[in-house]
């Protein structure tokens, strides 16, 4: 079974499996939980990258919440050039497509990074992270700018709460596929009792994801939907497919229970 994520793009983005390693789930394809291999995935999404290095959120980034956690990484990354210098040789050897995620906190970088990776065969596509609270017109402008800068397949990751309102502007501006969605922002206390804010992760998010996937699928847009957020079991993935997704991303499951992620991959491979 193969899945085409960019059916209207000359490059195409074909997945051999309906499971993707979500943004940063396996680092830059250099941080593998035990038992997890690249062949489990149809594609691997990198952590969000910006033009310049970002130090991210100060230490004290993790807060446990009911059935999940808040992780405030703050788009910590060494900068676009360093990422390419360090990881392109390994990506070129991988048989699984690499999708480079672009940080939602650095939308001004998106088009020039996109232009730089246009001719790099090891990068199969881009995933644009749209932050919570943006306007539809902003999404259209940002995605449009990237579309003009590159012909690579574009995945646009939308915040779940706003996904129905932002999906159409994203597709009209050139998105090949939609990732639904970016987790809602939340707050929690770290182990040192400091209050932090960041995206919520884990099973607590799944009901939000499922509702957003169904709502966007109901729009009937000409773009495949990838479900992301809180998927922890084969049954969760099946619900997403029933709601209209063609593929699913996992992240926190890989960190917390890699053996279950391996089982999920095997279950999806046997569909």
């Amino acid at each position, binding site marked *: 079974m193969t899945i085409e994520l960019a059916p209207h793009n000359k490059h195409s983005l074909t997945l051999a499996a309906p499971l993707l390693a979500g943004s*940063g789930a396996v680092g830059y394809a250099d941080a593998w939980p035990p038992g997890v291999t690249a062949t489990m995935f149809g594609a691997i999404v990198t952590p969000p990258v910006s033009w310049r290095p970002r130090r991210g959120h100060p230490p004290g980034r993790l807060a446990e919440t009911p059935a*999940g956690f808040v992780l405030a990484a703050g788009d910590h990354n060494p900068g676009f050039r360093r990422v390419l210098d360090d990881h392109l040789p390994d990506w070129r050897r991988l048989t699984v497509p690499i999708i480079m995620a672009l940080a939602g906190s650095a939308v001004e970088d998106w088009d020039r990074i996109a232009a730089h990776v246009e001719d790099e065969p090891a990068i199969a596509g881009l995933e644009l992270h749209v932050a919570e609270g943006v306007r539809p017109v902003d999404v259209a402008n940002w995605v449009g700018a990237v579309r003009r800068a590159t012909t690579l397949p574009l995945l646009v990751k939308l915040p779940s709460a706003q996904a129905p309102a932002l999906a159409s502007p994203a597709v009209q501006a050139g998105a090949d596929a939609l990732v639904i969605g970016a987790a809602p922002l939340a707050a929690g206390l770290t182990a040192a009792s400091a209050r932090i804010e960041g995206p919520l992760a884990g099973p607590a998010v799944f009901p939000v994801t499922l509702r957003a996937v169904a709502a966007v699928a109901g729009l009937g847009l000409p773009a495949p939907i990838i479900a992301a957020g809180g998927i922890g079991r084969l049954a969760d993935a099946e619900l997403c497919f029933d709601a209209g997704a063609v593929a699913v991303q996992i992240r926190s499951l*890989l960190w*917390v229970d890699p053996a279950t992620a391996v089982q999920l991959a095997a279950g999806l491979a046997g569909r």
Partner: protein
Amino acid sequence: MLQTTATLIERHTLGASQELRLQAPALARSLTPGQAVLVKTGWGVEPYLRRTFYPAGLDDESLTLRVPPGGDWGHAWLRTVAIGAQLDCLGPVGIGYSVPAGARNLLCLAEEDPATVAGSGCSAWALLPAIAAAADGGRGKPSAVTFAMEAPSARDLIPAHRLPAAVEYHTAVRARRAAGHPGGGTTSEGVAQFLPELLPWADVVLAAGSLAFYSSLATAVRAARYELTRGFAQALYPAAFLCGVGACQACVADLTTGRRRICQRGPVLDLLDVAG
């Protein structure tokens, strides 16, 4: 790193803490002292995050985890789980202690700080496997092992009978009294009182405690030995982990070398990197 199922085979209650002995041969054999184990502490998705432990005992077949007192729901679950239960463990995480070949005089220094233990699992007890390995009299091992420990009360100190007989053991109760109470704001000296005598003699130092403890230790080393050199002292960084493989970036810390992932650079780091 392995994800493995460990069988709970023994439980001992020591004051308000518990020690759990887990049978997990593959994991036990792959661990070195100072490396972390991440344990799932519930049957379902609550609590969702694994708890970080630094084993207090290691042999070829098993590892011993010390569950601290306190209200953490994961620790509370571990305190009630039945003998024979299967626990899901991930490990080893990171880099552990390493006693260099040729080191003759090993000095181990620890602080039992309840807040550090609750937040990160980093405890004085994490030094016990390193002490046991160093004091076994084997070829190439240190000829003398000294351990100095401080704790907020005498009952928080590691009992002497838990150490190999050959280890010289110094203890100190370091009472931090809250302002407003009789004697408020005063602090007894802790292991600092032993350091002017012990540090000049040591070839290598292994330490476990809070960041404040490491800062004091670095100051004491400079006072006793003129400078703190790389390779002289190793410190167990008090970090709790999420993925343990470097992907999530939850365990970053600001070291003297910059913002680093502790699961990749540590958790055992050169003291210069922690408090340089």
